[in-house]
């Protein structure tokens, strides 16, 4: 039996806002029926104020999926859609007083349904860029897809590398056999051979950072980390340029071979992960091309 918080149980046994909103003008449908979790979120948004007047959910899924859906509707009711877009999956989990690591994906599904519904309201197409794999590291909730991407993007070769880059395996260490299996598989795809005695690729920059950072400190630190990553990018004929830092969001240009490369998204994810580790705070890395959509630079 999962160790669910009282809050999860409360929302599961007495879900709020179950069912579709009758005169909804925004619908988001996300999830994966093969994994056993899928959610339809319907919203009634006031066209003048963009305030979410009503929210309803229909969920095929387990206890925590239903609880996450229920609490999400409670969180967003009364918010404007711009405010709602800032709701993270961690917010959903926090409102539920935590979720077991295996169940964090339920909160992710909630956030994605919200994004999908708002995109639907705005007449945009919403696509999911997030692929989920089997949960490998239960201590830090890292899945197989994430580890594979990091192994590809950063040319990782050992379990220690994987732990340095993703945290996976850094806790109880019982997933090391599974991580080795991933390394074996990915390295075989790259035509290399996994050697458990190989030296780690490189030690990540380990630096004590005192929080909170000023924006200037943050920018300097980000530059420093990008500098340390540059050699591996340049080895592939690419490069990265820091364009702007707004709050916790770093806007970057991927240049050279990285520009338009199919792996660019992975590389960005890798950079983001490294930044978060070194800086000890949440950093979002976004291509600079997205910047005009979000902020008014003038």
């Amino acid at each position, binding site marked *: *039996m999962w160790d669910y918080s009282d809050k999860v149980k409360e929302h599961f046994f007495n879900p709020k806002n179950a069912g579709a909103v009758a005169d909804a003008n925004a619908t988001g449908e996300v999830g994966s029926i093969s994994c056993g979790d899928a959610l339809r979120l319907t919203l009634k948004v006031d066209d003048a104020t963009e305030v979410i007047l009503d929210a309803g959910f229909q969920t095929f899924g387990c206890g925590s999926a239903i609880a996450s859906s229920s609490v999400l509707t409670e969180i967003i009711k009364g918010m404007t859609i711009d405010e709602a877009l800032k709701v993270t999956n961690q917010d959903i989990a926090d409102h539920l007083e935590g979720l077991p690591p295996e169940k964090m994906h339920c909160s992710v599904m909630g956030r994605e349904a919200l994004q999908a519904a708002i995109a639907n309201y705005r007449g945009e197409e919403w696509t999911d860029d997030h692929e989920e794999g089997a949960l490998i590291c239960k201590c830090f909730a890292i899945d197989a897809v994430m580890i594979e991407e990091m192994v590809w993007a950063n040319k990782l070769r050992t379990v220690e590398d994987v732990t340095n880059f993703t945290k996976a395996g850094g806790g109880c260490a019982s997933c090391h056999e599974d991580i080795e299996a991933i390394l074996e598989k990915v390295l075989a795809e790259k035509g290399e051979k996994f050697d458990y005695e190989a030296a780690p690729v490189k030690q990540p920059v380990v630096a004590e950072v005192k929080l909170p950072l000023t924006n200037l400190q943050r920018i300097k630190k980000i530059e420093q980390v990008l500098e340390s990553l540059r050699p591996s990018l340049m080895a592939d004929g690419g490069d990265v340029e820091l364009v702007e830092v707004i709050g916790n969001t770093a806007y970057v240009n991927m240049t050279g071979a990285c520009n338009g490369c199919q792996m660019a998204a992975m590389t960005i994810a890798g950079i983001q992960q490294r930044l978060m580790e070194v800086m000890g705070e949440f950093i979002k890395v976004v291509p600079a091309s997205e910047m005009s959509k979000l902020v008014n630079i003038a």
Partner: protein
Amino acid sequence: MTDIYLDNNATTKVDRAVVDVMIPYFLEQYGNPSSIHKFADGVAKAIKNARQQVQALIGCEHDSEIIFTSCGTESNSTALLSAIKAQPNKKEIITTTVEHPAILSLCEALEKEGYTIHRMPVDRAGRLNLDAYKKLLSDQVAIVSVMWANNETGTIFPVVEMAELANAAGVMFHTDAVQAVGKIQMMLQDTKIDMLSLSGHKLHSPKGIGVLYLRRGTRYRPLLRGGHQERGRRAGTENTASIVGLGKACELALEHIEFENTKVKAMRDRLERGITEQIPHCFVTGDMNNRLPNTTDIAFEYIEGEAILMLLNKAGIAASSGSACTSGSLEPSHVMRAMDIPYTAAHGTIRFSFSRYNTLHEVDEVLKVMPGVVATLRKLSPYWDGDGPVVNPEQAFKPTYA
């Protein structure tokens, strides 16, 4: 209302009579059976007695064919690893897609070491194709390992016939019978089964005790070396109290085997009929004509199993599910997938497994609760609308990233 336990394929309550015979081996006769003093006096004899009680239940020729292990999983690992070590030139293993992870995970690991694993598929009712099986048998096969009865659906495989075929082809045959022992009458001495695994906690003895039956004359290599115990075939100081308890449990199981197949079966059938008659859009999985008497596995369409279990648990009813969420994996049960049960039903499978401790009154209590549980969750389901599923469910709800 007292809580209702319908999860006996997961594990069982220890019989009071079993606990009673065990106590002296903790408090009085706690000596090492190998020692020569009064604390060990009679312990070896008690173990021999237990061995004969197990022998009687599975109908093997000699009591020395019984090897006590720590669990069903150890018995399974010992059987497969022994077969490949004792026959180093044979590099193939035949098994099924619906085995317990105790076999499947081991086979996966052996596959990485270069073994070829033939995993026989099952049809929609969970049955094997024996013609395909015959074609796989060859002198390259080290061992066939097929479960006697499936833990999720209760479907029984024709292991006696399959062992004959293997024997005729000169191939060793093992069966994981942890669900079958005590529920199906067996007489191993009349079969060609070379090895069989059983687990104590599935038949009202404690957890942490199992048996590997090893037919006399079968080539064998121990998993654990380091002592003369079990005639050198499984080293390690005997788990005396549990061995004695397992012996008693086997004696009781033999006494109740008819009860299992009449009274327990009647309870199972009543529950199954009651549920399928009262609740729309649910169906029984597995081979309904050839099942364990105590098991029913029912798929409730358009809802998810863990949510069902949580509501049942709140009502004081314990069962289990083949959904992905209950196990923390990304896929529903491999058994449901192997039978090609659609995802919208596979995630909603609930297994009710009975024991001789259940009552007809409990069945009626579950029948009162179950329709409400299913209706509650269907009200939340995007596949459900009012009194029935939405028209064309797969089309009506198509989440992004499926």
